[in-house]
């Protein structure tokens, strides 16, 4: 028994040390530069792959890899900082999310291009294989090695931060960047260094974990979220927090796996949510990081309202008539699959923009509502009534109060912390489909009614084979009714739902409710002092947004004929943020345009190159640097450039920007 516990602890500390190495870089990079680096996980993976390459080449080996790989990744990190992150300093951390999300795609695709999608094996040298015995227990040498190297690096980092001039400048920079420059110090140089150092630590983490967990292209994805949890738990920007948080999360996770399996995977998120609610700045964090930089919301552009309305009607008419060409000009697949996907994601992006562009709340957990909407819709069809309409309505009806509760808990924390707490909630829900049995076992108490128990969700395999109908309980099935050219009637259902939702959102923005949201976006303090309950308005916007996201999820699930855990994966939240920013936040049609552009480019690239993800990633990176206001800002920028005013870059102002898109 005792030996099992020692083994658990040792395992926990091993994983914990890997988290420490990952989180130290993430946290220091955030503390000094305010950059949220989602690509940190890919740098971790890159470390493992570089290590694999060096270890398996002639004359190489594990120990050579341990030296070469971190240096190589440090160079990559320095290049990333110098050429992509640096142009964005001073902007809202949100832009770093978009930027680094693009970098994730680029790096991941690069890895697959060079090393292929199959996992690789990297074995540890004999010296650190096997076990040693001491004090009556057996320890795996490998764990001791990881813990040892982690401890040495953490101690070294601590010494460097606290007892060298470099460390002094970096600490001062995280407190007051501007003042450091007033002392004649070129802080940009230090930024590159910090980023490269963080990348090297991540690379070491990836490499030391490789002999145990293998090397595969998904390894970055699997660690980045726990690493963020560690950083937030410990306090953004706090090195001490990263160490304590990393070891704590590693141990708690491992121990839970053996003793309370139902909580495995849940506990870290519960921990994070709990800590943020009690102490929003994390265990060792500074409360100052809630300050945000400039957020660019798009402005109306060059079209008049009437012209924009005509354009909108024309687009809807084209979409409505599109089935006529199906089978002649293009295959029905284009409408049934691609167009339906674009439309549901347009709705998802619209829902996100409702909170992000209008209420300034960057939700990293919006996939929660999308996924819950999808699951509920499918479950209603399977177990209650097969009606498409009722199922969608129930999905929305569940998402509304859910959004109210999560909004109530989350909106009290601001900025990056809000993003992280919503991510935490989303990850909690993402675990549910794989834990139905355990959760039901917990619920199987006499005083709880049996209907409270969860239905079977079949984990990662998902729920498929539903047979919804257009009537209330009977009538034609979804796959059965086709309009012209092999296009399903469902296409029209989706189109109607999306257009209807857009009109509803537009109406809300024209009414007092929406006008207050726009006021909050412009000047939150002023809105409060005009007499509006800003928090309540944000929460209401969050509820509306949650409902629309649930509808989007439900529609997509119907189109897919079922639902699986991928509907709850955090990467979908990232995607929808990317689409929203791509199109232009703060307008209702911009994000929808962004969804279209996202899938359009993807569809265009797919037959051209296998590396379409990488190309897409490069596009995002260029986009966030050069067109931060999104696609909708391009016409105005172009017009200003060619209209040739003396200043050239001044955007063209709308005569009445309040009503820039909702005007009547």
């Amino acid at each position, binding site marked *: 028994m005792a030996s099992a516990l020692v083994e658990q602890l040792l395992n926990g500390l091993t994983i914990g040390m890997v988290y420490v190495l990952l989180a130290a870089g993430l946290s220091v990079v955030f503390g000094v530069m305010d950059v949220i680096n989602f690509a940190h996980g890919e740098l971790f993976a890159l470390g493992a792959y570089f290590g694999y390459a060096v270890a398996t080449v002639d004359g190489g080996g594990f120990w050579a890899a341990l030296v070469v790989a971190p240096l190589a990744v440090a160079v990559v990190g320095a290049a990333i900082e110098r050429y992509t992150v640096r142009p964005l300093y001073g902007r809202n951390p949100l832009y770093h999310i978009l930027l680094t999300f693009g970098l994730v795609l680029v790096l991941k695709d690069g890895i697959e291009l060079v090393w292929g999608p199959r996992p690789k094996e990297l074995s540890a040298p004999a010296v650190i294989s096997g076990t040693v015995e001491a004090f009556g227990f057996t320890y795996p040498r490998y764990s001791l090695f990881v813990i040892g190297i982690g401890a040495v690096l953490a101690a070294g980092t601590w010494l460097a931060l606290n007892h060298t*001039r470099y460390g*002094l*400048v970096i*600490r*001062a920079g995280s*407190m*007051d960047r*501007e*003042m*450091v*420059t*007033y*002392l*004649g*110090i*070129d802080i940009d140089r230090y930024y590159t260094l910090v980023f490269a150092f963080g990348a090297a630590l991540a690379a070491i983490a990836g490499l030391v974990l490789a002999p145990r967990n293998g090397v595969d292209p998904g390894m970055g994805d699997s660690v980045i979220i726990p690493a963020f949890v560690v950083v937030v738990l410990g306090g953004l920007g706090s090195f001490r927090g990263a160490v304590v948080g990393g070891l704590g999360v590693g141990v708690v996770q491992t121990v839970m796996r053996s003793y309370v399996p139902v909580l495995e995977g849940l506990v870290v998120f519960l921990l994070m949510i709990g800590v943020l609610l009690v102490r929003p700045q994390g265990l060792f964090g500074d409360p100052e990081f809630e300050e945000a930089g400039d957020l660019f919301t798009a402005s109306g552009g060059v079209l008049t309202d009437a012209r924009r309305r005509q354009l909108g009607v024309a687009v809807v008419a084209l979409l409505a008539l599109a089935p006529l060409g199906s089978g002649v000009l293009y295959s029905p697949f284009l409408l049934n699959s691609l167009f339906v996907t674009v439309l549901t994601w347009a709705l998802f992006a619209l829902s996100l923009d409702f909170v992000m562009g209008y209420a300034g709340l960057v939700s990293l957990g919006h996939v929660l509502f999308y996924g819950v909407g999808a699951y509920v819709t499918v479950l209603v069809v399977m177990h209650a009534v097969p009606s498409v309409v009722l199922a969608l309505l129930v999905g929305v009806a569940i998402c509304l109060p859910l959004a109210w509760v999560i909004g109530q808990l989350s909106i009290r924390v601001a900025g990056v912390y809000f993003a992280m707490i919503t991510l935490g909630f989303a990850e909690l829900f993402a675990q549910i489909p794989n834990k139905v049995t355990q959760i039901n076992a917990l619920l199987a108490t006499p005083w709880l009614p049996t209907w409270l128990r969860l239905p079977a969700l079949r984990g990662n395999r998902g729920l498929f084979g539903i047979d919804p109908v257009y009537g209330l309980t009977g009538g034609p099935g979804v796959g059965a009714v086709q309009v012209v050219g092999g296009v399903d009637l469902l296409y029209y259902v989706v189109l109607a739902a999306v257009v209807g939702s857009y009109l509803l959102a537009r109406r809300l923005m024209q009414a007092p409710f929406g006008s207050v949201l726009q006021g909050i976006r412009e000047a939150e303090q002023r809105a409060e002092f005009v007499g509006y309950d800003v928090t309540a308005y944000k929460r209401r916007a969050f509820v509306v947004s949650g409902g629309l996201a649930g509808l989007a999820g439900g529609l997509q699930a119907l189109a897919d004929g079922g639902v699986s855990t991928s509907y709850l994966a955090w990467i979908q939240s990232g995607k929808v943020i990317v689409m929203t920013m791509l199109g232009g936040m703060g307008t209702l049609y911009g994000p929808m345009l962004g969804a279209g552009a996202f899938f359009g480019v993807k569809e265009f690239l797919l037959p051209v190159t296998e590396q379409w993800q990488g190309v897409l990633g490069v596009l995002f990176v260029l986009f966030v640097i050069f067109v931060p206001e999104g696609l909708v800002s391009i016409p105005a920028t172009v017009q200003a450039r060619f209209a040739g005013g003396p200043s050239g870059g001044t955007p063209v102002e709308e005569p009445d920007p309040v009503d820039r898109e909702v005007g009547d």
Partner: protein
Amino acid sequence: MSLLEVTDLRAGYGETRVLDGVSLAVDAGEVVTLVGRNGVGKTTTLRAIVGAITPWAGTVRYDGEDVTGLSPEATVARGIGFVPEERRVFPGLTVTENLSLATHGGSDAGRGRSVESVLDTFEPLDERRDATGQHLSGGEQQMLAIARALVADADLLLLDEPTEGLAPLVVEAVADLVRNANETDGITVLLVEQNVATALELADHAYVLDQGRVVYEGTAADLEAATDVVDRHLGVSID
């Protein structure tokens, strides 16, 4: 020739113009003060000189060299020391750390004064050398901010509201410090002050700024006598 020469400086933030053609000159060894009401562009003038913002137009010449638009790193390396408003002491660093940050490292070993020699002349700081910035009193923070510029070997000190929010007794102490730096160490000072009385006590020469322009220039004694100027542009009676 003046140590600092600012000619027709125009600058602002975004679309808002703050400086509308400011010209001034500071001779080596002088204390010059720049006074005016809140929001007339005093701080912006200092920020444009040190390079924290890029001027829209006009020139800044320091020691005969055109430094317009150079970064703070470059202007500080040439001997301009900027002590911004609210002191901006690093709250989590000790007094010694705050000071040693300002040394130019190994490469410029010849320049600047050592942390120890500066601490010798700032006794109250010497006693609190291991206290972190956040635990210092306002007066100690201001002392540290000035000491920091001395460690960085400033020949010209740009001081932005050094007596802001300090008790009268401490104001006197800070004034003595500035006088000392000027008289003993030969450091030239450009002083922005809200507290006109203290400013005129220290300064040889004064400029009055209103709405982004210099509206008065003269010796400190002249300005003190020019009650109409004080009344019109400073809005504070000094007696």
